[in-house]
């Protein structure tokens, strides 16, 4: 039972003829070819699929595409602007805050939503805000440092 669903992805309007109950993750990855958003668990436990919907972090693996009708979706591909990196992306690079990189898009998107809500989080607030994003390589220490650097204004948009 397909429906026409319109929403915005990375500032671009999209219109899809799609089963409204399909999860946003797979629509992004297959229909729209935005593979930066990753599947990690399919159950909202790991956060690899985190994207922003109207500036709030959501788990795209558990968000039916009908829920984003008329909304603004932001994925890792749309985080920088005009070819310039977002401060979080720069900070993750400067701190080497990644290893295999598979959780990285979800980490950065979740951190972005965190900083939009709370631009000056305390270290404890960063830990709490990031706690449901899993990293198996153990880059946590550096991820916290990268987010802190952005919160303290040490990384600006290039």
């Amino acid at each position: 039972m397909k429906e026409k669903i319109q929403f915005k992805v990375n500032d671009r309007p999209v219109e899809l003829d799609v089963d409204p109950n399909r999860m946003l993750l797979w629509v992004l990855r297959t229909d729209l070819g935005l593979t930066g958003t990753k599947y990690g668990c399919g159950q909202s436990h790991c956060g690899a699929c985190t994207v922003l919907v109207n500036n709030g972090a959501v788990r795209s693996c558990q968000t039916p595409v009908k829920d984003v009708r008329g909304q603004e979706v932001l994925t890792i591909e749309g985080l920088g602007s005009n070819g310039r990196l977002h401060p979080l992306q720069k900070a993750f690079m400067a701190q080497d805050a990644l290893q295999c990189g598979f959780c990285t898009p979800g980490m950065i998107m979740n951190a972005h939503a965190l900083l939009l809500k709370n631009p000056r989080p305390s270290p404890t607030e960063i830990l709490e805000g990031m706690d449901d994003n899993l990293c198996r390589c153990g880059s946590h220490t550096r991820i916290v440092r990268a987010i802190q650097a952005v919160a303290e204004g040490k990384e600006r948009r290039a």
Partner: protein
Amino acid sequence: MKKGQDLKPGSKGKPSAGDVTRREFLKITGSGIFVFFMLGDASLLVQDSLARRVSKALPHDFNAFLRIQEDGRVSCYTGKIEMGQGVITSLAQMLADELDVSHEAVDMVMGDTDLCPWDMGTFGSRTTRFFGPPLRAAGAEARGVLLELAAEHLKIPVERLATASGMVFDKRDTKSRVSYAQLTRGKRIDRHLSEPPALKKPSEFKIMNRPALRTDALEKVTGRAKYAGDIRVPGMLYAKILRLPSHGARLIDVDLSRAERVPGIRVVLDGDLIAVLHEYPDVAEEALSQIQAKFQSPESGLDEKNIFDHLLRVAPQGEVVARNGHLQKGELAAKTVFEKTYLDGYVAHAPIEPHTAMVKMEGKRATVWASAQTPFRVQSEVAAELGLPEENVRVISPYVGGGFGGKTRNLQAVEAARLAKLSGRPVQVAWSREEEFFNDTFRPAAVVKIKSAITEGGRISLWDYHVYFAGQRGSEHFYDIPNHRTMIHGSGWRAAPGSHPFATGAWRAPANNTNTFARESQMDIMAAKAAMDPLEFRMKHLGNGKMKRLLKAAAERFGWRPARAPSGRGYGVACGTDAGTLVATMAEVRVDRETGQVRVKRVLCGQDMGLCINPEGARIQMEGCVTMGLGYALKEDIHFRGGKILDLNFDTYEIPRFSWLPGIETLIIDDQNASPQGGGEPAIITMGAVIANAIFDALRVRVFQLPMTPERIKEALGAA
């Protein structure tokens, strides 16, 4: 690679099976070919696989490792893959430094079986140790040849020439120069040096031994980095495969009619393989859930509690891997004898990227994109599955989203190959998280039994060590003990059928986590009885100058003040060796007596890894090891009933999170005169013991089983 060990240096093409004598079994490793003698007759099968593998060794021609492109950029070819461990950065450092080009000028081409020299696989912290030297040698020889070419081109004697940043120039007149690109014009270099040139000395390094940031970070922070699941080709289908509910189960009845009604679905039934294929992965998943299947599962009473008794019951006799003195003499000299048993449960690899592969067939050729630590092994397996010669199968390695040993096995690639052949379409198989847990080759559950003794004067007089099913790595102690024996009962992942209810395999520093937990716990038990500071007790038994030096440095950085345990401070120490690297770790914990919750407050991890190629990369690995190690030390344990795996996602199988984070400090002893050692695994081995010892120091009770869950801590407190 040690040339002396290469039985067929320079052999090209595939020798026939007849090249191999019946009793010789050639085992090919990253450091060369070793001869093993088989006791029985080598079967045809072995000979066949042997014939295929004999040609597989690193080539001697430096052109296999590098190519200077027309634009002056340098392609570096390696069969190694990048899974987070950072060799994409450090291998480029090695080549750039030897070749005298900038680090940024090197493009890594990794794990492509058509383009890269053969490689056994990326595991065992072997890349820097064993691929590093031949890569550096290739860079050094290429540089030497470029000097010769430049001498002819510039008509200046070689002695007067020098190299820097991809240029050869006249030392007297630096304006007289020619670039590598001008000399080679993008072609392979058909000239070699008669004498292999010496590698650079540490004092000559410009790029090695200096911290370098990850070169793959830009791709990874922008979402542009491609993993196996991100590959798209026209006409591709996504497959979902019907799985058994438990290992050893049998399918009795299946009704596919509802799945077949899903629009656009293709159902494949081929022997034991039942799969649904669709142009959307989530629709395939939905169709899979429409399959109604009945299974018969074998009866088994085994679970995570009684597995240890079972393992001891089925354990093989064992073999001695180290011994000295007389155990009886050691016991006679003893004042106190300690007999302890240590247990370690099954642990999952749980990389965030599940096993994924895509296979595309075109006539008699196949291309595979796989999340694999062993691309060349995937090539063999896919070729065998498709009935193609190996050279007709090309495996391309995208970035791998974590491996930890689990991606040395790649059933998903064989499944994708089978389905691509059956369907005539390119097929992606991407395991769900549940499949990832179910199909994982867990770190084996294991038992260690140690009988040890100390004399009146607090010296260890006896050490009788038996490890069951963990494996050998890290089992041999390095302390000064006159009477000792180390016995291995069953290997870590080639245990006899009936040992484990499911597959087990290599998990980051295989066997060593279990062995170091047991050994270093036992050391602390003896130190406490001898009324000695646990660090001092170790020092007293260390002949190894390097380990002493490392422990001393670690103690200074940590701020270790001698005290006999339990001191109430919650301090722990543990040390070990892995992949040639020495590790000493100290930790401070706080334990809530009511809840049994352990909070690791800070960890200092010290490492002597010889010459360190990329100190920044090494530190990331150490931090990663410490963080990942918290999991097996405190929480991770696969629950099961026979072949049925109960933990299938991150809700019940919890891995370390941000809120667990201790303060992590790293210390590297940069021994420039020693050859580089392993860096991806060593620092994880001490995490069980250092926390166990810190818990004892805090609570006066000891936990003998990993993970040290709140329940086990409360149980230990209750028994005390």
